[in-house]
């Protein structure tokens, strides 16, 4: 049984507190504290008022300024309408176009087109096209020091395995291709992080025990094995070798990427929307309102973030130099920029944002540090522009060409 009564509690507390006495209130101290509190509140209110005024005034002033001075040029987020952009690049005019070679596929062979000599030279050693299926007879991809070429034959023509095609290596400027080997059409030949080597991927025959698991092997550009053969993760396509031994894959079903250690068979890191990769660099641009490129240096593990002009990180057109130190990026409807992947420094190349009625084609000459840009107007073949840029240049050096054959090759060819 409890003998506690809450009705008495108040009286008992009263009794307990009866002994608690205190002198007079410290009026001076209380008033002084009160005044300090009042001053602080006034200051806080004034601060909030200033912040609100700034928050309101800045956008208004910006809008008024914009209305008075017209569209404000902005490197961060230029949003010109594509149809209001110029049709031609601007820069320093030069009388002659920069000398470089274009890799051009014809119906049954591949040729180099020299802009200096203005003539083509056939490349030997490639499988002749007997029954091509695609829009082009050969497909190309950049390797260190040259290109892989894949003959786009009809499936029945190549007897080299399921979904396989023959892959070749064409060194920069060479007139003879070397056979790398038979590889899977989706990712048969891929850049390695060392010169003179290629990651060759193929599928085992359908009757094999491990059918369905692609395998990759580091081979020389002449097809000589340089390392063991690894079984690759299912559902991914190899994109390139990165760092000393890692491999970068892209998922077949989405835009997710995987950095994978073939020695352990485990994923090291995952990425979304990789836009380019070099021997030691992986560049990606995640979805965002502002556009930025992040570059991971694989050996050091450091990531640099570079905001780039434009609003659409997806669908960036890119070209990376063979050593991976210079990355050219172009958002849809935007101009060209170059990211130094070692420092994260961005160079915006002025005069390269063109209207959507034009075509543009760019790449690093021989995988080095000279950027070649070709541009012309769709369906108006009168003239085209060829420009070059290298680190340190403030503007493009632009030549205008009128040779229709050369314009067609610039449009269809692969610059490099």
């Amino acid at each position: 049984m409890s003998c506690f009564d809450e009705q008495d509690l108040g009286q008992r507390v009263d009794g307990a507190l009866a002994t608690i006495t205190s002198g007079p209130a410290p009026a001076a101290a209380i008033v002084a504290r009160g005044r300090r509190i009042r001053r602080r509140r006034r200051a806080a209110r004034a601060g909030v008022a200033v912040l609100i005024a700034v928050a309101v005034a800045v956008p208004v002033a910006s809008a008024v300024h914009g209305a008075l001075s017209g569209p404000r040029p902005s490197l961060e987020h230029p949003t010109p309408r594509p149809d209001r952009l110029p049709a031609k690049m601007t820069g320093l005019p030069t009388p002659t176009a920069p000398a470089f070679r274009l890799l051009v596929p014809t119906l049954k062979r591949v040729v180099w087109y020299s802009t200096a000599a203005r003539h083509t030279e056939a490349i030997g050693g490639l499988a002749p096209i007997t029954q091509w299926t695609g829009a082009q007879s050969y497909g190309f991809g950049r390797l260190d020091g040259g290109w892989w070429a894949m003959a786009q034959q009809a499936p029945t023509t190549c007897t080299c395995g399921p979904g396989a095609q023959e892959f070749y290596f064409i060194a920069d400027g060479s007139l003879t291709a070397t056979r790398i080997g038979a590889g899977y059409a989706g990712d048969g030949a891929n850049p390695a992080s060392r010169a003179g080597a290629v990651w060759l991927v193929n599928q085992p025959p359908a009757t094999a025990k491990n059918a369905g698991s692609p395998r990759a092997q580091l081979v020389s550009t002449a097809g000589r094995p340089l390392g063991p053969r690894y079984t690759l993760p299912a559902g991914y396509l190899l994109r390139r070798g990165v760092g000393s031994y890692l491999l970068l894959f892209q998922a077949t079903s989405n835009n997710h990427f995987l950095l994978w250690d073939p020695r352990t068979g485990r994923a090291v890191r995952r990425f979304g929307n990789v836009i380019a990769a070099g021997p030691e660099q992986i560049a990606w641009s995640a979805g965002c309102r502002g556009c930025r490129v992040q570059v991971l240096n694989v050996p050091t593990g450091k990531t640099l973030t570079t905001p780039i002009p434009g609003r659409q990180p997806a669908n960036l057109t890119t070209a990376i130099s063979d050593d991976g130190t210079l990355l050219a990026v172009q958002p849809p409807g935007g101009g060209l920029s170059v990211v130094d992947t070692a420092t994260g420094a961005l160079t915006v190349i002025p005069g390269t944002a063109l209207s959507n009625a034009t075509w543009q084609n760019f790449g690093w000459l021989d995988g080095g540090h000279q950027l070649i840009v070709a541009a012309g107007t769709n369906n108006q073949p009168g003239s085209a522009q060829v420009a070059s840029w290298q680190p340190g240049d403030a503007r493009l050096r632009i030549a205008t060409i009128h040779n229709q054959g050369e314009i067609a090759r610039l449009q269809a060819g692969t610059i490099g």
Partner: protein
Amino acid sequence: MDRAAEAEFSEFMDGRWLQLVRLGYVLTGDRGLAEDLAQTALARAYACWPQIRRAGDPDAYVRRVLVNANHTRFRKRRVAEQLTGTVPEPPLVDVGDGSDDRVTLMAALMRLPVGQRSVVVLRFWLDMTEAQVAEALGCSVGTVKTQGSRALAKLRACPGLGEGVSRELL
């Protein structure tokens, strides 16, 4: 603040000082802290005295400020608490004698959590309604009821508190 308002506040301060110190004491069990809380409550009242006067219930305002200041002090003290490797000796409470009911009562109150203690003090010592307590503590009436019920259950379980009480319940 004009002279009339200053004089009015001065009168209010003198009249409520002891009551506020006692409220602070019953909430904290420490006379020094109690005076500090009372000063804080009155200083904040001074800072916005014209508005408080217009609102018409300065007592409720200073009580609420004092209770909240005590809660804040308690929270800050808990954050600043240092962890030690040894368990401190629990304070000895003399509940067997029963001769000093005041000590027993204060010890029992001090053992209540600060929220429950505030509810008990406001509800039963200051005779505030549950709605007034809820307003003073900035919580719902339901919370006041719950906290009060738990606090009374704990006080009932305290063996020394029954002695000397004239009326028995249950």
